[in-house]
Every structure is written in C-alpha cells, then in structure tokens.
C-alpha cells in the first residue's frame, strides 16, 4: 500500500488511521494498534516539522505485510537530518520552541520491533520500521496456559 499526501499537520491523524486500518488484516491487539499509530504519528510529524519546516512537500508512506510482520516506510524529500545519532537521543530536539519533547524516535523504537533511519542533507529522510503482529496476544495465551497448569 502506498500513500502520498501533503506535509500538513491535519494529515497526521489521517496517516496513522490509514496504517492502523491496513494493519487490521493481521488481527492485531488494541495495544498493538495503538503502538503502530503512535510510531506512525511520530514519523509523519517529524517529516512535517523538520523535513518541510517552512514549506509544504510530499510525504510518501509505504506499507507492506511480510508474514505476520508489518513494515512501514515514511519518506520525505525535505531538509534531511544532520546527525541521525543525535536526533535519536532521548529528549534531544531542535525545536524546543514548538515544545517538542524530543521523544519521537524513542517512541518509534519503543513501540516497533525495528527502526532504521536513512537521511541525507538536502534530499530527505526515510524512516523504516517494522513490527511483528500478534506476538503479545500469543504471549498472553502462553501465560494463561502456564497459569492454568501451575
């Protein structure tokens, strides 16, 4: 599934809702859906605020499902990130005046299984993140079974 949209903040809710709807075919738990929505919201907001700071550009979102894994790519052709390592540090932000908490990448890392960031100054940023769906549900079932046996 590929979706292109303008880097306007009102599209943040649209983007995360679309990915959540796409992910429902994997029968995710409510918690997993919330995780995905948060991670997508962070990536898209980053593109809007940092990628296209004073301009409106195009954000391309690409989602695929491999087995029980959801892969989401969020790509912009904006400013790019100067220092990815620094950008990913918890609480680091270049936009404190916007009250950005500096937790965007931390949340993406926490809520998804895997996160990769590619970026080049002047050409844009690609965030690729993936998450195996249904795992926590199975873990709960195992825990319940174990509890019953004990």
């Amino acid at each position: 599934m590929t979706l292109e949209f303008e880097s306007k903040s009102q599209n943040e809710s649209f983007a995360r809702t679309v990915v959540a709807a796409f992910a429902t075919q994997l029968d995710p738990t409510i918690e997993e859906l919330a995780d995905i929505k948060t991670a997508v919201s962070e990536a898209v907001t980053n593109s809007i605020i940092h990628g296209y700071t004073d301009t409106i550009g195009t954000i391309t979102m690409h989602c695929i499902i491999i087995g029980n894994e959801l892969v989401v790519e969020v790509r912009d052709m904006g400013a790019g990130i100067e220092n990815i390592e620094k950008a990913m540090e918890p609480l680091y932000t270049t936009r404190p005046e916007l009250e950005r908490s500096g937790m965007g990448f931390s949340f993406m890392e926490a809520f998804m299984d895997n996160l990769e960031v590619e970026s080049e100054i002047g050409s844009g940023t690609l965030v690729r993140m993936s998450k195996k769906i249904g795992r926590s549900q199975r873990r709960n079932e195992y825990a319940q079974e174990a509890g019953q046996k004990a």
Partner: protein
Amino acid sequence: MQDAKKQNKMNIEKGEEGTSYDINQRCLIIRLNEELDHHNAIRIREKADKLIDRYNIKHIIFDFSGAGFMDSAGIGVIMGRYRKVIFIGGKTAVANVNSAVDRIFRLSGLYKIIEKYDTVETALSIIQQN
C-alpha cells in the same frame, strides 16, 4: 461542592474543535475531546496559556475522557503547562486516562512530575485541599 455558586466556577469555552476549558477556583480543567497530536497541540497550548495568564491559574487538570490517542506532542503540551505553574507551587494532573495513553505517560516518565486520578472530581478535591 454545595457552595458551587460561591466558588469561582465557570465554563470558558465549548471549543469548536472539541476541547473545552473549565475553571474551578484557580484550577484549569482542560477537557480534551480530540486526539492529542502535534496538529491539535498547537491550538490547545495557545488557548490554555491565555487562560492560565488571564485567570491566574495555579493548578491544571487534563481530562482525557475524550482523547483516546496521544503521541509525543502530548508530552510536550503537558510538560509545557507543568513548567508554567510549577514555579507558583501549582500541580498538574491527568484524569480518565485509557491504557494506550497511560503507556505513553509511563514510558516517558511523566508520572514522576504529574499525578494521575480516576476522575476529574477526585483530582479537584485532592488538589484543592492543599
């Protein structure tokens, strides 16, 4: 509560976008009725700050009963308001938080500085005792 009329109680605005603001004595209650993301955060923080300054607000309660989703922008909104009232000894609290929002609060460590209550009424009575 029987003295409600004597208290400085008012409903400031039924927000056209959903979020509304109530003031009870010097406590601002922000009743979120929309997802707390970057898009909505900008408007909420501007409105809240105006009210905090104009009505000499000391405490803030965020009511999440109408907000099922929040991302890191919400952390920014709450931290920012916390910073505005902490210097005058004010408290910041959240109420009616669902499990998704609760995870975000726990993960961010925000519960170290704000308090969580089941309902706005509980939050109000405890905060205003002090």
